[in-house]
């Protein structure tokens, strides 16, 4: 294995540069996304011109968006956002209309021709799904109310975007009925794939996952295979990778395994998405950038401000509170990196009488993306701080609250990690003391049982951060862990709130002493407790055998009739 076919210079330089810049970004508290975009600009034709977009980089960046959207789909629990669907649809529709008009007016006013204006408008109307999703996920805000609104709007936009891509890739744009047919076909296909995803996660996948979810490795391969199945299906049908991946994730998002799967797929996604963001810069040439840079800067400023107010008006209109509206709007102020793709495709399209679209348009759109994406990265990163600073300016807006109560949160609850016989036997006592109980367990045999219990059931390994977030570890009052795994116990003690009561399990005195040292309230040593009892029995046995027989009789009966009814 001496070949260096993949581990090639371009790829190594790209990753290493991205890593170094990401470390610097982290140190200077900048969003890592900026580091990745800079990587591409530095290494690409704009600055050093030492790395070109190789096949592997192309593949990985494709997989990057695919897996990001897959994760996003997993993140969407339909039950949780049901109440939001209507307002989101309305916002998305109006936003598209209003922003398209804004995006149309600006270039027209800047002196572009009508055709150019149309292309630019189509290119710059979208928000950048990967950017918003990545930044919100990094900040753990994707499940907040503004996060859900934004992501919902972006997804609807993406569907609209893919339709436009389909338009540009069509051979001719002259025939209205052909366009209509293409659109109709597209919508039908999306609906069919969505239905396949949904139905299989209702009837087919639960059975499969039950068999394999305990094996970490197999479980992961299944998740990836499922994503590829839909990616393959949608590329075969001429849809985009993103739509397929999103629909695949959406189905899995409705299953109890979602948190564990998210945790496993996230590192893979992070890896690919770094390449994706870096590769944006690789495609830009220096000549592209200089042609219309002034126009692009002006347009960017107008667009950022305009987009914010359009979103603000629309979200507010749906009756969300001030803060949600503000955050939901400030997250959506960028031009999508897809605009580059759309522009690239448009450049090649012959529009008949209107003539060909110039290459400089691509430069114009690129500059807008380069300006608005980093700006919005900062806006998203510091959205709360900005809101605090400017809150007083928004006083005139009344605070009517119609949505948002539906998102339930765990608070002052009990968490049981690992559902074994003991957990089952102490559960009634815990339920007596706590209104909310979360059980985190990774045994597939318990899935059906626990889904019926009146507890918040989370499938997964508590060692992983997703599971700890889902169980709201930082908010819990009582944590009883049967995990018997040192990393899990350490993580619990590290992240729980100070006054929380923590019970943990240890096999031997050494571990027990360590856990006490870290702050555990009580370390359960089953064997020691059991030995105490056993010694009592043996003492009785030595003194009075009949008495011993009587005593163990009760135990035997309770073992026989107690325990799980399996």
């Amino acid at each position, binding site marked *: *294995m001496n070949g260096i076919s*993949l581990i090639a210079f371009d790829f190594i330089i790209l990753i*290493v540069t991205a890593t170094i810049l990401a470390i610097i970004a982290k140190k200077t508290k900048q969003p*890592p996304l900026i580091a990745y975009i800079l990587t591409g600009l530095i290494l690409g034709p704009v600055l050093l011109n030492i790395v070109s977009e190789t096949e592997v980089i192309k593949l990985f960046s494709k997989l990057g968006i695919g897996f990001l959207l897959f994760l996003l789909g997993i993140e969407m629990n339909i039950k949780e956002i049901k109440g939001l669907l209507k307002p989101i649809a309305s916002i998305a529709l109006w936003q598209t209309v209003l922003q398209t008009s804004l995006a149309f007016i600006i270039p027209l006013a800047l002196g572009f021709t009508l055709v150019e204006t149309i292309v630019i408008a189509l290119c710059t109307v979208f928000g950048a799904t990967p950017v918003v999703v990545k930044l919100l996920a990094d900040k753990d805000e994707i499940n907040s109310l503004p996060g859900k609104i934004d992501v919902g709007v972006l997804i609807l936009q993406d569907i609209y975007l893919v339709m436009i891509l389909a338009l540009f890739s069509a051979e001719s744009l002259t025939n209205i009925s052909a366009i209509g047919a293409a659109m109709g076909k597209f919508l039908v296909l999306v609906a069919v794939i969505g239905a396949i995803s949904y139905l299989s996660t209702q009837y087919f996948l639960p059975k499969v996952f039950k*068999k394999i979810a305990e094996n970490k490795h197999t479980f992961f391969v299944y998740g990836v295979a499922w994503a590829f*199945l839909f990616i393959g299906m949608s590329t075969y049908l001429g849809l985009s990778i993103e739509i397929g991946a999103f629909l695949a994730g959406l189905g899995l998002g409705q299953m109890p395994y979602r948190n564990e799967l998210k945790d496993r797929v996230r590192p893979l996604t992070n890896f690919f998405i770094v390449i994706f963001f870096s590769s944006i810069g690789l495609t830009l040439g220096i000549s592209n950038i200089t042609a219309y840079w002034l126009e692009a800067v002006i347009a960017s400023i107008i667009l950022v401000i305009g987009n914010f107010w359009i979103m603000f008006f629309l979200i507010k209109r749906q009756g969300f509170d001030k803060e949600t509206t503000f955050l939901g709007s400030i997250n959506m102020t960028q031009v999508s990196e897809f605009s580059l793709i759309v522009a690239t495709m448009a450049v090649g399209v012959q529009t008949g009488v209107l003539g060909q679209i110039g290459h400089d348009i691509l430069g114009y759109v690129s500059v807008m993306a380069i300006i608005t994406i980093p700006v919005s990265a900062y806006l998203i990163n510091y959205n709360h701080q900005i809101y605090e600073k400017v809150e007083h300016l928004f006083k005139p807006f009344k605070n009517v609250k119609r949505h948002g109560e539906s998102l339930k949160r765990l608070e002052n609850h009990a968490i049981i990690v690992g559902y074994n016989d003991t957990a089952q036997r102490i559960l009634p006592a815990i339920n007596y003391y706590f209104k909310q109980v979360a059980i985190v367990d990774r045994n597939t045999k318990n899935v059906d049982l626990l889904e019926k219990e009146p507890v918040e059931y989370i499938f997964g390994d508590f060692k992983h951060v997703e599971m700890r977030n889902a169980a709201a570890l930082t908010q819990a009052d009582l944590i009883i862990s049967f995990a018997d795994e040192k990393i899990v116990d350490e993580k619990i003690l590290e992240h729980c709130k100070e006054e929380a009561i923590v019970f943990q399990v240890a096999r031997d005195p050494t571990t027990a002493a360590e856990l006490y040292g870290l702050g555990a309230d009580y*370390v359960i040593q089953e064997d020691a407790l*059991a030995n105490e*009892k056993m010694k009592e029995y043996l003492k009785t046995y030595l003194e009075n055998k009949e008495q011993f027989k009587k005593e163990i009789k009760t135990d035997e009966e309770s073992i026989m009739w107690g325990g*799980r009814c399996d």
Partner: protein
Amino acid sequence: MIELITSLTAIFLAAAAVLFIFNKLNHPTIPAYLVAGILISSIVDKATVMSLAEVGVAFLVFIFGVSLKLKKTEKVIESTLIITLGQIAAVSIIVYSMAFAIGFTITEAVYLAIVSSISSSLIGLEIMEGGKVKQAYKRICISINLIQDLVVILLFLILASIPLAIRTTIPNLFVGVILLSIGIVMRPLLSNLIENLKRSGEIAMLIAVSTLLIFTGIAGYAGISIVVGAFAAGLALSKPPYDEEVINTVEPLKYFFSAIFFVSLGALIVIPTISTLLIALGLIFTITILRPFITLLLIQIKGYSKGTSYMAAFNMDQMSEFALILAIAGFTALHIRETVFQAIILAAIITMITSAYTSRYLWEIYDKLEKYWFIGLTDKKYVDAKVPEDIEKHFIIGGYNEQGKELAHFLIGNDQKVVIIDNDPERILEAKQNRVNYIYGDMMLQGTWEKAKHEKAKMIIQIASVKNLLNKTLELETKADKVLRVRTVKEAKGYLKKCTYVMIPHYLAVERLIEHIAGCIESESYRVRLREINKREMSWLK
């Protein structure tokens, strides 16, 4: 691009399908991937996919390197170093001379020898648990596999420079040693870096991948095997506790790319020719029969009991993952012919699957074979026991672990006669020091129990909660009361009517537990007191 995505789709769908069946049959993962590869060999674009597969190899070896705990490793290696080196030497000499005699080239004979002398491995992760592994034979397996892995990495360094010549081999060795040393030197630096970044998962992953790419890149450009580079990179990131961070974030990448590696390896398999089949048969015989017997002999010479050495040796009756990497490396470097390559992959699939079966029925097979000479030198010489000839009305305790120890000493304290049985030399040593009657032997064997005078005992307490041991204890003909320790209520139900009492630790423990929980919730002072008392007691016990 589209073709690549189609290939990847095919790879993962086939892997998922075959894994489903293999999981059901309790078969291991890797042969499942190889079989999946065979199924889709016509669809996959092999040349491009193979370059992704290379990344899989890098990640596999990298994670192995990361999970090596240098300190623990030393300890683990010590116990079986001579056995392992002896085993590797013996098997490779036999295979090499056979292969050479039949007419293989020297290089091919060397490859065949290496491939057949190492067993399944890349078990780095298990080593972390090394301290926890209680059964002696498992500890031996882990140790032997670890040493083999390290030997193989060295061999990669040498094999890459075939044909051996001082002009190329010495510089190669030099580069390898330098890479490894850089890896070790960088350990503290990189762990500081990760600590400094507040253990951000994403950046830890990037640092890990960058390190891996740089090391493998250097290895690649210097013309040595990327396996060595990946291993050095792993070492660079192996410093606890950050290794956990690295493993957690890089493991999905390893799964992803190693799946691609193994499936695309499977895709290279063609319908075997007669000579391929013959070579494969030879390898299978060596791996499943010849090598285990050599290992068994060596372990016994070292002083382990018959049963332990049998279990250890026959648990390693499969081909190594490293052998697969070696095979493809040799094939692409034109060191071995296609027939040899095909035979190695074929033998790997078969031995990995058969091994899953043999390990399931090992004890049953042992019961049948135990009486024959070839299972071992006579047991007498090695079995150690101290039991008074006239003992009666005594307690026999199976397993001298924490629980067994506590109960044994409790009974001795109450003027009872006690015999303990264990097959772990370390525990026996402890029993000797504590002046407890002991038998060093396998509880699966009738002879062991006879030595313990089970028919005259008052009570037998079986602490080892292993199914076949529990059953063996139940089968013993004696009037003694039998107490079994079992882990779950479900299992306990099966034993309830067949013995005097079944102790389930958590069952006995649960009442006290509920008391403590309620106490902590209701009263802060209860909580403080409970913690203080137990904390003190634990640190005292420790």
